[in-house]
């Protein structure tokens, strides 16, 4: 995948498939430590230890539709290529936390890419999910939660065209305000 935001979308979709109703996406860019950390934490059904041990095997999947599961192995490869790693913690009935770390300035680190479109894909396509997005860059922070958006909107859905256009600009402005030094 050409952008890390596509991997993020994939992991968020995994969380939704796992029945999560609350997901937190935290992105932390630390120039001094030369580290990018992406954490997706969900309250989905979780996995037993033996399943966690196998999810990085591309020929393991819980799906019945086909016999490969490439999402997590691809993210692990992207992290390892950029001097980082992927860690997965999970507990049945509690949820799963996926943590990917990257060397921020690594030549082979993919750009974060179009985060607003990734977030909107989740905001719009699955209204029942509560997504909290927290993004920190060298101490600056932008955060946005679907709970606060829904509270402000009342009975107007997030899918309303005017709301969607507003959200896209809100996310773009918020991320631009972080003054990210690297793509």
């Amino acid at each position, binding site marked *: 995948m050409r952008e890390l935001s596509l991997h993020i979308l994939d992991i968020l979709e995994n969380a939704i498939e796992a029945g999560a109703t609350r997901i937190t996406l935290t992105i932390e860019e630390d120039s001094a430590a030369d580290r990018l950390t992406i954490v997706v934490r969900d309250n989905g059904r979780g996995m037993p230890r033996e399943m966690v041990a196998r999810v990085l095997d591309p020929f393991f999947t819980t799906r019945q539709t086909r016999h490969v599961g490439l999402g997590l192995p691809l993210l692990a490869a992207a992290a390892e290529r950029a001097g980082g790693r992927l860690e997965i913690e999970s507990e049945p009935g509690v949820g799963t936390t996926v943590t990917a770390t990257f060397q921020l300035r690594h030549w082979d680190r993919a750009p974060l890419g179009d985060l607003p479109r990734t977030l909107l894909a989740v905001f719009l396509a699955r209204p029942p999910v509560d997504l909290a997005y927290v993004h920190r860059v060298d101490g600056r922070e932008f955060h946005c939660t679907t709970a606060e958006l829904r509270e402000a*909107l*009342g009975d*107007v859905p997030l899918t309303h*065209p005017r709301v969607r256009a507003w959200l896209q600009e809100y996310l773009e*402005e918020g991320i631009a305000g972080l003054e990210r030094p690297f793509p």
Partner: protein
Amino acid sequence: MPKLKSIDDLRKLREEAQQSLKVRVETGTRIIVGMGTCGIAAGARDVMHAILEELDKRHIEAHVETVGCIGMCVHEPLVDIEQAGRPRITYGNIKPDMVPRLIEEHLINGRVVDEWVVGRLSAR
């Protein structure tokens, strides 16, 4: 410097949006975009946004959803269109620039774009 957006702006937008909600007509149309790993890698996110933009442009009310992998990875991005009383049509290898024709033919003219179809399910 222009004023940055805040959640308070959204509260103001709510009233305007509520007015337009009253005149929007529910068409009973569902558009389902495959958003598994294979779909995402093939460009499903941009296809979904192209669909949303085209629906807005043409003032069409439809429910856009995502679904995981259904096993036809080679045909991703997949887009299903389901309308009450009609077969559910699965279109394959859809790119953003194909979306305007797809919406015009299928939703406005009521004609299936046969050359892009990879599956059909009878009406429920």
